């Protein structure tokens, strides 16, 4: 509608531009909302699967073999925690695929009495966590950190150039 109004007001450039800018602002906000919705949706891999199966599916799609291990006694996790763990695994494996040049990758889910911990480790080239880029597509470490924090957990990043990388997301139960 704003675009139509801009078209009609074409003879008045100032008014037409105002309509256009308004349309632009709304468009940006809609995109952000859409992204947020997508992020909050349960990952498709969880559809009908346990979190362990979902993680195995995610791991199986990687070009490098990913060793998946579950430690401790598995138990039903809240839906939000399951979604977050799978998203974090996806994000971390995307980083490994795009940046690490790793030959060994492992994903370990550890059930403890009062928390569940997901570790993603690789033997790739590593990086300096202090200078890691922010990542603009909802992937990246900031997004993983935000997901973990939303659940009251903590994300730990251990890496150094040439030393591989270990990401650990601990979520309280």
């Amino acid at each position, binding site marked *: 509608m704003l675009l139509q109004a801009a078209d009609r007001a074409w003879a008045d450039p100032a008014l037409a531009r105002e309509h256009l800018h308004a349309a632009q602002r709304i468009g940006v906000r809609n995109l952000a909302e859409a992204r947020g919705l997508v992020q909050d949706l349960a990952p498709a891999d969880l559809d009908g699967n346990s979190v362990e199966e979902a993680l195995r599916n995610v791991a199986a799609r990687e070009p490098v073999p990913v060793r998946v291990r579950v430690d401790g006694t598995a138990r039903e996790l809240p839906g939000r925690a399951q979604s977050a763990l799978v998203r974090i695994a996806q994000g971390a494996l995307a980083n490994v695929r795009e940046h690490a040049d790793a030959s060994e990758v492992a994903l370990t889910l550890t059930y403890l009495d009062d928390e569940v911990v997901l570790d993603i*480790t690789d033997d790739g080239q590593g990086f300096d966590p202090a200078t890691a880029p922010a990542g603009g597509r909802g992937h990246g470490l900031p997004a993983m950190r935000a997901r973990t924090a939303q659940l009251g957990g903590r994300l*730990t990043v251990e890496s150094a150039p040439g030393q591989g990388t*270990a990401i*650990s997301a601990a979520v309280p139960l």
Partner: protein
Amino acid sequence: MSADRVIEVVLCDDHAMVRAGLRALLAGADGIEVVGEAATGQQAIDMAAALRPDVVLMDLQLGDGMDGVEATRRIQSGGPGSPRVLVLTTYDTDADLTRSIAAGATGYLLKAESADELYSAIRAAAAGRTALSPPVADRMMAQLRAPRPALTEREREILGQLAQGVGNREIARRLFISEATVKTHLGRIYEKLGVDTRSGAVAVAKEQRLLS
């Protein structure tokens, strides 16, 4: 041993003041005589062999070098007829207690005990009877009533690496997990074993044969 025979005691403590205090305390006891004072574990072992006392009163924290548990173990390794070792400590931790008893101590006393408790503990130890401070005995009973949870497979795995002297970073690398998670596991292992250091965990693990 006849009741009127004097019980010979060697004191082992790295603090001269404590030895002097114990000597003064024991001077007031009938039938107990201090025959030697050791400031280190090695001196205690040497005196135990040379003087053949009935009882060694052993402190656990001996400053640098061998600790009281190790000294106790070596004194007991002298076989039958070795002096009885009565641990006398300020510290009251489950790990120290477990390690001391595993090393062959006949009793475990806290320094805060009264003089009479000390005399009777020395007499009991000389006769080969177990002597425990009441709070220590209480805790031991509580432990037996509610045994600590068993270690998980992963925890045993990590404990095994600790026993080999492997550091956290290398354990993490070997097990394909983060150091943060290694530390989490260590925290739970320490809690289950009632210790607060790596060496404490390894000592308890060996003594309780937790590592196959």
